[in-house]
């Protein structure tokens, strides 16, 4: 058999049969696409455990549409191409109805083409840089306007910061976030020379010079603030150096977007008291729903375990999905997607999360000060802010909107009134 004829066969027989509509096969399968090994395992394993906990809770309540829910866990091993491979396996081989997964932007971008090709559905629980809206992904983490911009407003309004150091790890989330922030700060009248930007590699440990540079910034007598998008382990060296240089939060406040309860458990926080973090959730949030959530988590995983923001995102996302499936009466992706729009679910921090037509949530923005026991003291909580897929602060994306039910487009140019593309940009 020669190759051309094989390709001909391939072309004619290629398409796989589509999934039947409006029909539920038991058990309902929930795919979990979080790294259980490799560098991201530390963050993502927690989320896998969260989804499993939510699935168990739902099964205790009687499952979904009369079926048991079954969690199908795979391990993409912090290897980005594997996210595409495993997503394909989950959807086409395992036939899962929904996927909860991904942490880094690059892993999401890796899985996106597969999700769109096979019309899968994924819930992405982590704060991210925005500038994306896929028909097949619901973003339950914060968009920049739900975390970064309010934090900068807090710096400007409440702390009177006039010079900014934007320190980040060199990858897409800090890069894009800082670019948005730079544009935003310039709109607010901060001059270019008053913004210091620095990028360091993952796991950077030599912070003496950078901390020195930041301290030097206060030489012109204006208040300096640090906006940190430093990721993971590198934070430990950074905060240790800050403490060694005796930089107190009163002199130079640091607000971090990637430091939560989990990250703080790796270091002694006595010297960090008063530095800030901005999230949509803190474990210290004082509501009854949160108390119960934390208690369940600790009972399941151990007393010393903490809860964090992406966990709440999965909590909201999973419950919304359950409600949407119940409403639609099927796990079919298109029907569930339709039912998702406008879904409401109470946040753990109070208030209500609403699923918007751009696949983002409304979330309150919390700013917390680090306390000695590695928790956060919430000092500011806004009303719910609707997530914005395309930032208003960059000229290229200011003219874009995402509205799936209304316009059927995630990247709609309001100037030319055309849909730039249906697939997402990956």
């Amino acid at each position: 058999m020669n190759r051309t004829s094989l390709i001909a066969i391939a072309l004619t027989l290629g398409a796989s049969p589509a999934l039947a509509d409006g029909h539920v096969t038991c058990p309902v399968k929930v795919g979990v696409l979080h790294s259980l090994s490799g560098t991201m395992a530390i963050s993502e394993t927690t989320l896998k455990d969260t989804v499993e906990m939510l699935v168990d809770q739902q099964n205790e309540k009687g499952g979904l549409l009369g079926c048991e829910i079954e969690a199908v866990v795979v391990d993409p091993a912090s290897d980005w191409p594997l996210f595409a491979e495993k997503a394909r396996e989950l959807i086409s081989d395992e036939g899962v109805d929904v996927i909860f997964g991904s942490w880094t932007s690059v892993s999401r971008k890796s899985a996106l083409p597969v999700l769109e090709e096979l019309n899968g559905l994924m819930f992405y629980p982590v704060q991210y840089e925005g500038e994306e809206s896929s028909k097949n992904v619901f973003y339950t983490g914060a968009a920049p306007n739900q975390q970064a911009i309010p934090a900068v407003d807090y710096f400007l309004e409440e702390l009177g910061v006039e010079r900014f150091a934007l320190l980040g790890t060199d990858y897409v989330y800090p890069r894009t976030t800082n670019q948005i922030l730079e544009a935003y700060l310039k709109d607010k009248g901060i001059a270019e020379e008053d913004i210091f930007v620095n990028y360091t590699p993952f796991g950077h440990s030599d912070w003496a010079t950078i901390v020195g540079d930041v301290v030097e910034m206060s030489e012109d007598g204006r208040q300096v603030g640090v906006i940190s998008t430093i990721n993971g382990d590198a934070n430990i060296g950074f905060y240790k150096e800050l403490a060694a240089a005796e930089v107190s939060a009163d002199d130079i406040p640091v607000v971090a977007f990637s430091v939560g309860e989990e990250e703080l458990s790796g270091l002694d926080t006595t010297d960090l008291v008063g530095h800030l973090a901005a999230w949509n959730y803190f474990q210290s949030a004082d509501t009854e729903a949160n108390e119960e959530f934390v208690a369940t988590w600790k009972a399941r995983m151990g007393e010393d375990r903490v809860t964090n923001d992406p966990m709440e995102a999965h909590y909201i996302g999973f419950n919304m999905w359950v409600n949407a499936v119940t409403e639609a009466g099927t796990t079919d992706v298109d029907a569930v997607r339709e039912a998702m729009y406008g879904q409401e679910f109470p946040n753990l921090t109070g208030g209500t999360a609403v699923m918007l037509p751009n696949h983002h949530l409304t979330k309150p923005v919390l700013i917390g000060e680090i306390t000695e026991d590695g928790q956060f003291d919430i000092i500011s909580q806004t009303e719910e802010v609707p997530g914005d897929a395309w930032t208003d602060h960059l000229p290229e994306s200011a003219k874009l909107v995402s509205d799936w039910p209304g316009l059927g487009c995630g990247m709609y140019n309001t100037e030319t009134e055309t849909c730039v593309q249906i697939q997402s940009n990956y």
Partner: protein
Amino acid sequence: MTDVSVSPSSGRKYSGEREGLAPRSRPLIQRPDVLIFLAILALVTICATVLAQMGYVSTSTVKLLGKTLCLCLAALAMDLVWGYTGILSLGHFAFFGIGGYAIGMWLMWDRTELIVLETLAQNPLPPTPLEIEEAIGAQIFGVVGSTEIPWLWAFAGSLPVQLAAAVLVPGLIALVFGWLAFRSRVAGVYLSILTQAGTLALSLWLFQNDSGLRGNNGLSGLQNLPGLDDVPQSTISLWFLWASALALGGAYLLASWTVSGRFGSVLRGIRDDEARVRFLGYEVEHYKLAIFTGTAMATGIAGALYYPQAGIVNPAEIAPIASIYLAVWVAIGGRGRLYGAVIGAAFVSLLSSWFTGGGAPDIDLGFYEIKWTDWWLVLLGLTFVLVTLFAPKGLGGLVDLWTHRRSTRVDDLGPDQGSLRAEEDRP
């Protein structure tokens, strides 16, 4: 079955025969190892195709198979440069990545261009080249917070140029690096460390957003071929499986031909005793440079075929550890024999994805449960040490047992042996 690494020609050189081509024992196509290899390759490919058509083999499995063949090709190149010539390059996977980046640039550009043209066509005015370029820039680099098109992307819209780049850029880098290194007689572990450092520098450079290749995100969505939106991935994956199989088959033939001739003899001579080959009047540097560059190009081709199947190429792929794994595959498979490299790469990478994919059942020891996702790397690392210590011939050695072919010569302990013996002899 002929073991190419100990083919008679290698002995002949020492007897002083310099002039003329060492006679090839048999035409290439009649040599049993080549025949068996090609037959197995064809069988696997055809079976996979047929089973995929019948729906027994999923698209992800076809992709896995296609990717594995590409890794085998890279391992083959590694075997030539390390197993046959004794240059332990810890940077060959960088060439693999460069090949992926080169083809990835075209795939991204062309796909984006089609999308952009479609959007711009809704404009009453026909698009100008500047408008198209700006729109492409915003689409590709908007993700990493930029809209400008870096100079590296000047020819990204041209498939022939990018295809050539997938081969020539690795070749050129290898040529310059090799020329500098071999000229200063940097060899042995020094060279290994240098290649590793070079790979680290390349991956750090790619990591930077400023370098223009989208930083840590790399190039993604490569599985979607431009203009072929209607062709399902199940078909495209088969195309790539065939392309990968053809590339591997072709490369195997070429490699067999290379190592069985005089050129191959000189390479083995360099591996066993570089100084002696130099005294015999051979331009050792030229031979080393030729094999280093040639294998870099082959690895580039492997990368160009691999990443459209993987869907994404990014700097993490090029990290030094990947190149070391390449050496590990070759070592486990068996150095100095071409099929050894292929067996090693296929065996270890498939086993690896089986273990990390949760395919292997966990073992409950009662007091401790061995989860293979956690312990697989420990197993791999220790296996590798044991293979190096006790089975330098690797899995390929099993083939020797099977063919009842006991070497009458002194056991070949590997490429270092000769040169170090010489070292000790030296006053």
